[in-house]
């Protein structure tokens, strides 16, 4: 199974958290909120498409919505493969962070 990039992992977690409201705009807002960096609008579709291609996400289209000029939204949902991939990513994270109690940055140490 292909591993997840950091952005992919973040997007999958965003989709998971947003639940039934997971389409491109809230996902992007969520990432902006959590990471603090602005992701370009176009930049959100590329990893989303890739995750769909990898089989970690499925999509379904909503009914046409008047606020969108009569166009429908595309919602995303995690697949079981996506869940497994996220679980694996968490394991890797836990292993990497195991035993590291605290991080203290002291400028003197670098001198």
């Amino acid at each position: 199974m292909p591993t997840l990039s950091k952005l992919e992992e973040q997007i999958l977690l965003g989709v998971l958290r947003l639940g039934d409201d997971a389409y491109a705009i809230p996902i992007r807002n969520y990432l902006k909120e959590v990471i603090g960096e602005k992701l370009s609008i176009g930049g959100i579709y590329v990893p989303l498409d890739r995750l769909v291609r990898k089989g970690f996400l499925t999509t379904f289209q909503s009914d046409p919505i008047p606020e969108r000029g009569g166009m429908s939204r595309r919602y995303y949902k995690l697949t079981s493969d996506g869940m497994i991939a996220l679980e694996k990513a968490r394991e890797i994270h836990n292993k990497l962070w195991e035993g590291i109690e605290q991080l203290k940055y002291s400028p003197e140490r670098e001198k």
Partner: protein
Amino acid sequence: MNNSKFSSPGLARWTLKRVIIAGNRDVVLGDFEELYREILQKRGRSQALLWYWAQVFLSIPPFFKSLFIWSFIMFKNYLKVALRNIIKHKGYSFISISGLTLGMVCCIFIFLWVQDELNFDRFHKNADNIYRVIVKYPGGNKDPLGKILRYRNNYDLTVTGIIENVDSNSHLGFDFVVPIQIIGEQTLRTWAWDNTSYLLLQENADLDGFRKKIAGIIMKEDKRSTTKTRVDIPPCFFRHSNPLIF
């Protein structure tokens, strides 16, 4: 698409629709529409318009970039398909490629030849207005037999016969024939050196023996010949068809 007063400007939307490369076109356009309306409500029309147009113009460079990349990828694909086709049908490929090559080579050679012919003797800047004076019997249409022609301001030659013009596809181009005795000792002495000489051999003559013999005579009789002198007797009428040999 409804054209309510809240919807995005038509031209901008039209442009954006054509340059979207990521995701589903309609879905992405819908997302932009939603964001536009959000900004419209929060910050007013001018800000929303500015934002929408900025998105349009920001989308144009990546669109052309991807267009270029895809056409390159497709070109690579075509190349690969062509190569595989060649490998699969070796015989036909060989025939068609070699035929094409032969045709191209012929065309190039013809082109070069025509170019050379068209530029032949064209180096002079007045080439268009320069004409060659063709020597003819000066008497015009009068019967030249028995008349006297002055040759090199020295020899008076009586016209004893007339022959047809020699065909142009021969190297034996001449205007008149003179017996060698008339032109004199001078010419006769250096016949093998200064003039092209022709020999008519008997049908069953031993060519190699003759070559050796005549070479010996020339070497012996002519004072200018040295040990390096080479006597070559090529067949006369092969001259033009084998220009590279002689």
